[in-house]
């Protein structure tokens, strides 16, 4: 019967059409995907026989507009030097990246290399099946390659004695300040605040004299690294050494958050959220901003456009206690099971963390050089650092760097969210900080399995 044929034909052509368009729409990526799918045996075979490898790389630097050119340059230099390896780079926002990797592992289309933040280290090792470098690279090669690499930094990607994440882009909390606002408020731009006491004092003075916002401490939301830095600087801990007990409800920790609440209550610190504070600071409307050093390049551009001078200082201290700057930032994880790809991925990791790699990362993307000696090497960063003295506080903090602690178990993200939310709430409210933090600790502890 005609209708039956037509109906069947329509169905078939419909599905063909849909598939065809799917392929057409993906265009050149169709090949890439076949090659990328590590479960796909044919793809793996191809990669070996042609010696042509494509690595799917998730990067959050590519999701931040100001960091795109530098990151693309890094990738391009690598590809030029390794014509048989192609990097298929995918931008993913840093707040989404761990979830995205998990969703993609589910889909069987996991990236070969992922740039993950350190708070997800534990989970990446136990659930994403991240490959330790020790299993991929011979011990002597590994050792010789990391001569001159920051040992403090290197430790951050290690768990159970193996290097799962290769530290990549690092930043520390730096106090940015606006020299012009300092002058207008009668403060000395050459003497930035060294303690939180002074931050409050200066902030109030700025607010009073100029009507602008005095200070903003970032990091209450979107990752807990600055919170951990503050807690540590006040002598506290987020998690016990044995990784079993949550400690952010203890008095030292609560004391650090108490200081934060005081800053806001007194009016020295704005009630803006981080995004708004960054924008306002760029427009010359905020005196001081404690946030990731990665923002430096965009602030430099903004200050030049706005006609004010940007300055930086180290993270302020609690009285005479030592500060413990915690790094924000990421490591590169090799996730692929394919041997050929693992080797190619290692080549990529080696290049981006080489002297040349960190020259680009520091000067054009805005993160710390984890090979500190290149700062004095005229072949690499010497001239640049001299031309950009603002990076110095950031470099100095590298020595006292503390690792960003990741919470154990599948609920790590929820624990971090509990801390972020509780702090966010505590600092803008009149509530009793100790009670809020203890409650948060109790809820978080229940999530540790």
């Amino acid at each position: 019967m005609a209708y039956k044929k037509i109906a069947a034909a329509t169905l078939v052509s419909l599905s063909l059409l849909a598939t065809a368009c799917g392929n057409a729409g993906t265009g050149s990526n169709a090949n890439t995907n076949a090659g990328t799918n590590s479960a796909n045996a044919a793809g793996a075979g191809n990669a070996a026989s042609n010696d042509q490898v494509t690595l799917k790389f998730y990067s959050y630097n590519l999701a931040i507009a100001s960091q795109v050119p530098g990151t693309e340059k890094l990738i391009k230099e690598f590809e030029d030097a390794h014509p048989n390896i192609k990097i298929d780079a995918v931008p993913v926002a840093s707040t989404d990246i761990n979830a995205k990797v998990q969703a993609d592992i589910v889909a069987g289309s996991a990236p070969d290399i992922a740039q993950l933040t350190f708070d997800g280290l534990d989970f990446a090792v136990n659930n994403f099946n991240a490959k330790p470098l020790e299993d991929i690279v011979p011990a002597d090669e590994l050792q010789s390659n990391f001569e001159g690499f920051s040992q403090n930094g290197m430790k951050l990607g290690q768990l159970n004695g193996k290097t799962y994440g290769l530290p990549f882009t690092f930043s520390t909390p730096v106090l940015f300040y606006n020299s012009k606002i300092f002058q207008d408020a009668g403060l000395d731009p050459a003497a930035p605040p060294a303690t939180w006491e002074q931050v409050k004092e200066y902030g109030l003075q700025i607010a009073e004299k100029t009507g602008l916002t005095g200070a903003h401490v970032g990091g209450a939301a979107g990752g807990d690294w600055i919170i951990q830095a503050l807690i540590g600087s006040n002598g506290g801990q987020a998690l016990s050494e044995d990784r079993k007990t949550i400690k952010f409800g203890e008095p030292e920790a609560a004391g650090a958050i108490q200081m934060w609440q005081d800053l806001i209550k007194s009016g020295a610190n704005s009630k803006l959220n981080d995004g708004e504070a960054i924008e306002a600071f760029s427009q010359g409307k905020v005196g001081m901003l404690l946030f990731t050093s990665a923002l430096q390049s965009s602030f430099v551009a903004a200050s030049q456009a706005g006609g004010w001078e940007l300055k930086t200082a180290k993270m302020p201290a609690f009285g005479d206690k030592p500060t413990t700057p915690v790094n924000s930032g990421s490591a590169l994880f090799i996730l692929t099971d394919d041997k050929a790809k693992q080797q190619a991925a290692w080549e990529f990791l080696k290049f981006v963390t080489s002297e040349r790699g960190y020259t680009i990362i520091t000067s054009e993307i805005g993160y710390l050089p984890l090979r500190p000696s290149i700062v004095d090497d005229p072949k690499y960063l010497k001239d640049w650092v001299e031309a950009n003295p603002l990076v110095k506080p950031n470099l100095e903090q590298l020595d006292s760097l503390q690792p960003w602690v990741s919470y154990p178990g599948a609920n790590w993200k929820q624990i971090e969210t509990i801390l972020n939310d509780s702090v966010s709430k505590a600092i803008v409210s009149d509530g009793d900080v100790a009670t809020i933090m203890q409650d948060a600790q109790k809820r978080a502890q229940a999530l540790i399995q």
Partner: protein
Amino acid sequence: MENAGRRAGLYTSAALKHASLVALALLAVFPLYWMIVTSLKPETEVFTSSLIPLHLTLDNYVHAWNAIPMGRMLTNSMVVAVIQTAAQLITSIFAAYAFTRWEFRGSSFIFGLIALTWLVPFQVIMIPNYVAISGFGWRDHLAGLIVPNIASAFAVLQLYNAFKSYPKTLIEAARLDGASDMGLLWRTIMPNLKAPVASIGILLFITSWNDYFWPLLVTTKLENTTIQKGLQMFISSDGNMWGALMAATTIASLPVLLIYLMLQRQIIDSFVKGGLK
């Protein structure tokens, strides 16, 4: 005397009516106006409140176009929306035809099954569908965006109403003239239902063009996604470039706005008839 007073009253009430409608229209249109105005302002003017751009520039469009693969994403959106609309129309024309042409066992039940899907929110079924699409290897393929949507309960219900309005006697007459079932559908009924089918098609196209969640879940790369998800990524990566952001937003809305400009009467009518979701 009394008449004059009454007329004055009528005038004031008419003025009030217009005033409230003008206010409502302003509220509805101003954000779009502001979007377009901002997108045409040079960087130095973006932060001013001037209601008209003093120096027109297309710089923001150039910036937005270069920052994200706009052309590619617009093409993707267009391909998805056109194919999806066509597929939904075909599947629902057949379904509606079956419901109106024959009486058959379970017809009410089947109709009910289709109608009830409007109660199923996207979030309730997203996880299994995500797993299914992943299983087919359709992530980052346009097929993954299109195939789950080749049938639309909304379209079936709307077309059913349209088909129902077509006189049964005409169908009978054509049948007695020896028309086949297919011929009857395409040569007798469809030519008379062009208008409702077209307006339902436009609605489906707009819905598909504006869809955001499914692309959000099943696509990762900007080159493979639709303009709506691209716009959302632009907001989160370059959120303070307001001029460029408004330019990107304008581009993303343009096809739908143009269709609306040409066919607003039909679109409004079919929305009011067809409702939401």
